């Protein structure tokens, strides 16, 4: 987590240093992004950018595909686990393989990746209450977690995050749809 945060903060700082002086206030296209490394590294900056974008996308794709498989396999009670051999959990394996192919369809159909990213981030925030509220009940269920139940402070923190996410979603989704 510390590593990821450091990288994210570094990206934000470099972006501000590069885009600010050039008068770019809003990144509207992926083609503008390599600009971040080109002034420093020249042509190899472009190569470096393409490579890091590729690695980041591959990682995210694998992670999200696995997440779908965990969701489906645990929901239906199948065997699951990325440490098992594929032949020991065929259902799980098929779900993550399929979700990687299915996820490529919208982009292959020509959807703008940047718009899709921003829209799905807003959707994620909107769906946060739906995924977290059941956990809130579970974390307060004595029969399940016994002495590890949430205290008042933890419950308040969770409720605050849910409310914040919901508010952000209410503000951002109409903006996304009506374009602003």
């Amino acid at each position, binding site marked *: 987590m510390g590593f990821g945060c450091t990288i994210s903060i570094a990206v934000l700082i470099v972006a501000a240093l590069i885009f600010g002086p050039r008068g770019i206030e809003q990144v509207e296209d992926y083609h503008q992004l390599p600009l971040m490394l080109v002034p420093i590294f020249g042509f190899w900056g472009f190569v470096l950018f393409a490579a890091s974008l590729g690695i980041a996308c591959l990682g995210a794709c694998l992670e999200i595909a696995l997440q779908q498989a965990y969701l489906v396999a645990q929901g239906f009670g199948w065997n699951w686990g990325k440490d098992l051999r*594929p032949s020991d959990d065929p*259902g799980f394996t098929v779900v993550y393989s399929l979700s990687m192919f299915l996820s490529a369809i919208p982009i292959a159909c020509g959807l703008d990746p940047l718009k899709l990213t921003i829209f799905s981030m807003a959707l994620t925030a909107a769906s946060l209450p739906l995924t977290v509220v059941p956990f809130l009940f579970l974390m307060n269920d004595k029969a399940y977690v016994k002495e590890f139940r949430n205290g008042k402070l933890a419950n308040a923190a969770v409720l605050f995050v849910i409310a914040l996410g919901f508010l952000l979603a209410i503000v951002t989704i109409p903006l996304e749809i009506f374009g602003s």
Partner: protein
Amino acid sequence: MELIRDLLDKQVVDRQQTKIGKVDGIIMQLRRGEPPRIVFVEIGAIALARRLGPRVGYWVSRIARRLGGEKSRKPYRIPWNKVRDIGVDIEFDIDVQNTTIFDWQDWLREKIICRIPGA
């Protein structure tokens, strides 16, 4: 024990702790003058579909029969007297390889997974 809360939709494991599905349905027997008792739990897509409505159940049952033959027409039932442990998971004294529950996973393994290089 509350049946809906503590039994329905809980994880089912066999005697080797293999995860074999969820408790998708509970079959009870009504007896004259005595309280009803659980006789089976049902596992599988058909039992799950029936809970969405009789028509959904009917169609899923037809699809299952077409794919898996006559034995797949009804959801798999585990006799309640095979139950060993009721906790977060429900353990039954059965071996999943002797049931039809994993037929579709066996099919996936043989026809698709094992043909992918590296699997």
